[in-house]
């Protein structure tokens, strides 16, 4: 019998600062600012290139595409699942958009079709995972292969760079700016606020965390577990399609190779931000700031003149550091 627990139970910290410090995203936010400051101190020439409005514009835009997908991915991860197919879904949506617009369909037809394609892929994933109880890892791995192959088949391996009469609108949407921010960043900020709100203040959000915390308990208390699981994979497909539309607009072209390997960057973002592969942790801001950190590392190394071949090593080290940090704070001891 356990005689050791006669000491008082650990007291909870209620201060705002304490609560913030308990969040991984808080430390990642600090790192996002600390890394360039440290680089500036070490290498004065770095500061000229980094602390420029133009670079800020580039950095924020670059991570927006990943972070928007990560907003969907993080809801999947909160339930304890994973979506490996986002890179391929991005390609399917992008190709559908490109193909329709090349054939002079209006943006207002092509964009909903691209979103429909992303949602359909999400429905396929979600149905198999939620209702046939297949493993998320395997199902989305299958979708990763199916999606990439569909993109090849639909595009017939062609390269789309002419987008018909709505070309201007598409290019402006993905490549233009509003209030000094790249348009994809505006989308990202709006979507982060909406997702943060939904996860924190709606029954849907509360129940996703419950599923990640203890799925059988959630089921016993009448939480509609299957329906909610379906919803997160659909949302992941939806967010990926939004990112696809913006990416194609920014790039000004689309090939079936778009989004190759994105699943790793997206999952890395959510894990760095504080999501946990076991579920129950993470949030919209985690997805946002995790993606931001990866881009800041990438950009800082580039501007500091470090050989780009080393980027993967640094990003990988930060992923491992993120998990280590979590362990050090003793979150998984319970």
């Amino acid at each position: 019998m356990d005689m050791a627990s006669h000491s008082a139970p650990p007291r909870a910290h209620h201060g705002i600062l304490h609560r913030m410090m308990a969040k991984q995203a808080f430390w990642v936010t600090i790192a996002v600012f600390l890394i360039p400051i440290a680089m500036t101190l070490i290498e004065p020439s770095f500061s000229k290139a980094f602390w420029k409005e133009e670079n800020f514009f580039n950095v924020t835009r670059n991570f927006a595409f990943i972070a928007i997908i990560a907003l969907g991915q993080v809801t999947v991860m909160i339930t304890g699942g994973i979506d490996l197919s986002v890179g391929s879904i991005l390609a399917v949506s992008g190709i559908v958009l490109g193909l329709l617009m090349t054939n002079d369909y209006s943006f207002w037809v092509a964009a909903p079709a691209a979103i429909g394609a992303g949602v359909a892929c999400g429905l396929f994933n979600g149905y198999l995972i939620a209702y046939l109880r297949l493993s998320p890892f395997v199902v989305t791995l299958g979708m990763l292969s199916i999606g990439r192959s569909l993109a090849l088949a639909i595009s017939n391996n062609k390269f789309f760079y002419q987008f018909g009469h709505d070309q201007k609108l598409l290019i402006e949407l993905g490549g233009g700016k509003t209030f000094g921010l790249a348009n994809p960043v505006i989308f990202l900020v709006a979507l982060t606020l909406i997702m943060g709100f939904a996860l924190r203040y709606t029954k849907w959000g509360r129940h996703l965390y419950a599923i990640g915390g203890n799925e059988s308990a959630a089921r016993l208390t009448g939480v509609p577990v299957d329906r909610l699981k379906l919803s997160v994979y659909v949302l992941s497909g939806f967010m990926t399609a939004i990112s696809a539309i913006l990416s194609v607009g920014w790039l000004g072209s689309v090939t079936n190779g778009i989004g190759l390997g994105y699943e790793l960057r997206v999952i890395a973002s959510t894990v760095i931000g504080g999501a946990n592969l076991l579920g129950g942790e993470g949030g919209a801001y985690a997805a946002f700031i995790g993606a931001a950190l990866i881009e800041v590392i990438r950009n800082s190394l580039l501007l500091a003149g470090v050989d780009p071949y080393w980027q993967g090593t640094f990003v990988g080290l930060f992923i491992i550091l993120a998990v280590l940090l979590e362990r050090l704070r003793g979150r998984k001891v319970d």
Partner: protein
Amino acid sequence: MALLELNGVSKHFGAIEALAGVDFHLEPGEIVGLMGDNGAGKSTLVKIVAGNFPPSAGEMKLEGRPVHFHKPVDARAAGIEVVYQDLALCNNLSASANVFLGREKMRRFGLLNLLDDRAMHERSRDLFAELKSETRPAEAVRSMSGGQRQAVAIARTHLSKAKIVLMDEPTAAISVRQVAEVLDLLRRLRDQGIALVLISHRMPDVFSVADRIVVMRRGHKVADKPIQESSPEEVTGLITGAIRAA
């Protein structure tokens, strides 16, 4: 009239007879200790009452009316709550989020229907106060002691004004001091008129809180008597089969 009445309830799983024509009744405001060895039929009996599966034969009456549960939710709607051995809590959520899980309080905000955490915290605080437990509504279950976790699980049953609470080994995995805390919780529930079924292997716990004892062996009920008329020695004999019936 008994609060809950089971007449000749049997349950077969293929060729295995888990329950063989068991009669069982429960009165308001009593604690019944349900004892027996592994495989004696305790959990089968409890699962039938909790709506996990229907009996193969026999009838079940709640407040005199026959009832047929198909899902745990049916039993809950009828006022029967279960506190599972693992407590079925989400460690990553706060105490009040756990208490209200699946029946959250909401408030309208324009077109939106949002969680009303303040109301849930307040109600949880009242529930914990009623149970005289030092559990803070906003604290995550992860950082709580075994006794506090029990209080959260019990507060959940209390929320719905349950008539019957079935408890599966509530004292199995906690420290001595916390056992006393949990047994106090059970007495408080009884004093409020709730009927409790306590499944336990721990003889001292059963003898310190139960009013009546029911012993099962190999799917049969071998004893059902007031606790004062029994003794731990007799119960041990009944469980092992050294005493045939009492």
